[in-house]
């Protein structure tokens, strides 16, 4: 409430004081959230400047590139490599369909890598054009906040530009984090993993999150030996436990060595490669060690503390529901705020920011029912609550519908891998609280389901939808019998 009034008040001020600022908005960081906010603000009529570091596939304090993590070091190159890797098993499956292929198939990593880089360079160009078409002024260099309405951009040649802006938006994203273990400099992060000169023969991956399982799948699909180490019993903490077990089983079946509840303690360079030691005393030799141990907000070199922008203990910029920081003229969206670190969420935050500040329509991003996908092979996709979350939050009983089936393609290919789907339903209201799927095409399938959940669709509405036959997705509308009913009423709300 107070926030809205503040915004309105400022709108009025804007009318009187507009002329005093070089820009209505200056955005630091041209990734998903920053570009979206900049473009939309410009479309609302704001005068917008944006700064970004020079382009490079591997990021550092001084290099980055328009497009940001998603386009240059995340979603896009990752998905390209997943496509490339998925052909490995696809081609195996072709044999039982009558295709005669050479025993050993040639794969040229350098070609894939080269084409991947070409594609992200192309996208980098498209993003730049998007900005210029929207009338946003792009500066190349490192941005810094020097006052509540003042930014400084250090250009490549060292010269510094200084601009005043009515609003400043921080959208600098995040970067991969390395664990503090001896020899950590021998390991790589996902940035380098997307640009390796050679395909690893034996890769060690540390981490149980989506980045870890995605890279494990990529390398395994392309023929590498992969050992995956993670702290918990199952990978993908935070996802539905049943689905985590399904992913673990699939990874293992496809030949990835899983090491649950295991950490790495030391890396040592040897003539044969990197010697990896675990806290269980095991030793392995690998040519690549990937740290997929989380990402940290990129907030260090922005001079935020000096101007009074508060950070939390992980370094994330603290913001209110409208993405405003502790300084009223400074805002932040995307991974740097560490809310929900997904491209489409950063886009939503950027859009809401532009609406709030320049569209006279205070808008809060809505974090309920945000779908997401893990591009492991096969992929996992979810929307809404996991079974555990549903039980935790339920007032009444929770109904769980699951379906485990052999996808039709496998009946001939002979691949032994089941697809698993799950709906979690509130017994009282019949609302579908959560949906998850692990199996081919899961992310594509889940998008439409997400629309239904966003609008509070009931199980009855799912049931009344006719299936598309034969598809995997039709299983979501043909789950007739409850797999289990969990009585939550009166149950103490504790988690394991």
């Amino acid at each position, binding site marked *: 409430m107070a926030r809205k009034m503040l915004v309105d008040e400022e709108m009025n001020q804007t009318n009187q004081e507009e002329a005093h600022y070089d820009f209505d908005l200056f955005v630091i960081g041209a990734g998903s959230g920053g570009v979206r906010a900049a473009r939309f603000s410009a479309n609302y009529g704001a005068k917008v400047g944006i700064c970004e570091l020079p382009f490079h596939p591997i990021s550092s304090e001084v290099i980055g590139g328009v497009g940001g993590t998603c386009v240059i070091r995340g979603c*896009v190159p990752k*998905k*390209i490599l997943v*496509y*490339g890797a998925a*052909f490995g098993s*696809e*081609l195996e499956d*072709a044999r039982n*369909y*009558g*295709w*005669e*292929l*050479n025993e050993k198939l*040639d794969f*040229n*990593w*350098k070609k*894939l890598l080269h*084409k*991947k880089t070409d594609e992200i360079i192309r996208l980098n160009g498209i993003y730049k054009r998007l900005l210029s078409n929207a009338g946003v002024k792009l500066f190349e260099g490192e941005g810094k906040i020097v006052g509540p309405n003042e930014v400084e951009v250090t250009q490549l040649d060292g010269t510094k530009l200084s601009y005043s802006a009515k609003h400043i938006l921080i959208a600098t994203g995040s970067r991969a984090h390395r664990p503090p273990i001896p020899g950590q400099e021998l390991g790589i992060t996902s940035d380098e993993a997307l640009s390796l000169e050679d395909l690893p023969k034996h890769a060690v991956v540390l981490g149980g999150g989506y980045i870890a399982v995605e890279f494990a799948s990529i390398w395994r699909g392309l023929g590498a030996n992969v050992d995956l180490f993670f702290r918990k019993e199952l990978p993908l903490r935070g996802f539905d436990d049943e689905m985590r077990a399904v992913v673990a089983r699939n990874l293992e079946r496809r030949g990835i060595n899983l090491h649950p509840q295991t950490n790495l303690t030391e890396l040592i360079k040897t003539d044969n490669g990197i010697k990896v030691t675990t806290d269980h005393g095991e030793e392995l030799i690998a040519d690549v060690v990937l740290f997929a141990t989380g990402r940290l907000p990129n907030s260090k070199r922005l001079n935020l503390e000096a101007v009074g922008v508060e950070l939390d203990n992980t370094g994330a910029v603290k913001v209110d529901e409208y993405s405003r920081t502790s300084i009223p003229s400074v805002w932040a969206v995307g991974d740097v705020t560490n809310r929900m670190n*997904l*491209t*489409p*969420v950063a886009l939503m935050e950027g859009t809401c920011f532009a609406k709030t500040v320049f569209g006279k329509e205070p808008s809060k991003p809505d974090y309920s*029912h945000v*779908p997401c996908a893990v591009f492991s092979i096969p992929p996992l996709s979810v929307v809404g609550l996991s079974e555990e979350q549903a039980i935790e939050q339920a007032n009444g009983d929770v109904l769980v519908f699951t*379906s485990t*089936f*052999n996808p*039709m393609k496998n*009946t*001939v290919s002979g691949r032994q891998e089941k697809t698993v789907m799950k709906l979690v339903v509130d017994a009282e209201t019949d609302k579908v609280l959560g949906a998850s799927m692990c199996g081919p095409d899961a992310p*594509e*399938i*889940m*998008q*439409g*389901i*997400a*629309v*239904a959940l*966003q*609008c509070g*669709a009931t199980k009855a*509405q799912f049931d009344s*939808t*006719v299936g*598309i*036959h*034969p*598809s*995997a*997705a*039709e299983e979501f*509308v043909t789950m*007739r*019998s*409850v797999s289990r009913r969990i009585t939550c009423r009166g149950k103490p709300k504790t988690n394991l």
Partner: protein
Amino acid sequence: MATTSFTAPKLSSPTFQTLCRNFPLSLPIPKTLSSFSFHLSPFLSRFHLHHHHYHPPRFHPRRLFAVRAESENGAEPIRHYDFDLFTIGAGSGGVRASRFAANFGASVAVCELPFSTISSETTGGVGGTCVLRGCVPKKLMVYASKYSHEFDESNGFGWKYDTEPKHDWSTLMANKNAELQRLTGIYKNILNKAGVTLIEGRGKIVDPHTVDVDGKLYTARNILISVGGRPFIPDIPGREYAIDSDAALDLPSKPEKVAIVGGGYIALEFAGIFNGLTSEVHVFIRQKKVLRGFDEEIRDFVGEQMALRGIQFHTEESPQAIVKSADGSLSLKTNKGTIEGFSHIMLATGRRPNTKNLGLESVGVKINKNGAIEVDEYSRTTVPSIWAVGDVTDRINLTPVALMEGAALAKTLFQNEPTKPDYRAVPSAVFSQPPIGQVGLTEEQAIKEYGDIDVYTANFRPLKATLSGLPDRVFMKLIVCAKTNKVIGLHMCGEDSAEIAQGFAVAVKAGLTKADFDATVGIHPTSAEEFVTMRSPTRKIRQSSESQGNMGHEAKTAAGV
């Protein structure tokens, strides 16, 4: 995929319990059936419990009959029947209705012809068209044929083949047929487990309560006709040289050069299959475009994409004759000329209901001019004790619709819950390459029905194609009612369309608005996310000048919000 329901049939005992709890019931009389007296007769149920001659292997404490179609005037004495339901035809609709009826406590028999991959007057097989001669084998062939495109794609991702991948036809046929055998076995098992009596043979209706199967008579309180449809072959000279879709799914060797006559989904699916399995494919269509009845833009788009993959379309050409030459090759004569040298000519010129020789006319079951059985909204024919579901009624000829009709019928008859199948927003797919997924109205239908609509389209090169270098594109379309903001049509052509459309079908069926779509966060990077990120309409269609004025006003108001 349906294979689950095969391997793990879910028997809905909770429903049965509900039924018991609610018993006795008073049945609301559906309007269309009100000329007959319906009510529950507990006496009758008990009577039947003692007398029906078939006991399912498991359960039931008590037989329940929700609906009784007899005259209650006392004119007819209570009659004993061999079965509560006798189903003719064990395809999707028949099996579903029979299983569900048995689960609801009815004694059920189903008859079906002996198994064969090619249907005839004397062959068929448990599983029906979908499992043996339709959806399933077709999809398996699509999977097989898609690989040639995937090989091309994989080149762009760094994969290399020292020798061009070759396809061995017989391996595919053997593996496909093994799967069909497995499935027909599973279907039989499902019937058996549900306590349904399976009778092999040709069923024919003798009177409103009697079915003759190869000379043996069975009486039933209700008879269900679910005999499906069969390919229709137009009467042209040389038609005996042509193959239909049954044969096309089970050819002994690869067709080198094939002509496909027809522009419907079956024609397009087979064009994709044969093209992918490296045949030379020519498609002959009567109209300018393929897929009559589909959204016009989709029709254009899929035709273009298929042509890019090497399929040759011959538009506005109707077949007139097929000629076999001395060397055994076939020529197709059309209104525009003759094309020679085909190894196979496939006629994909529609399907017709299988209503011949069922004894329908003699008992008074009315048939329309296409041979389809006329039914009311509850799938009841003109004879009160005879019902029909699936393709034989020629409503919407899709497996999931037959399943819906079968399930609704079982509820109507045996669960005291008169249920009409709901034909609104039935999604469907065409497994052409690229495939199509759709739900709701086409743009043309939407304009007719709603007048004022907003159309959102996207036509893009998917991420995979930017790497593969192939000319693949994706087309998506949302049709929104201008007045209510409801999404009334959704269409897509491109990779994964069929899978993508399903979830959106839930949303469209639930009557969700464009604003609801917009409020949904995308899944990145997918093709599907495009459906929730379509921000500005490609065009706004306004009917009358009067409503245009109104719309202008509304639009302004909306923009001001």
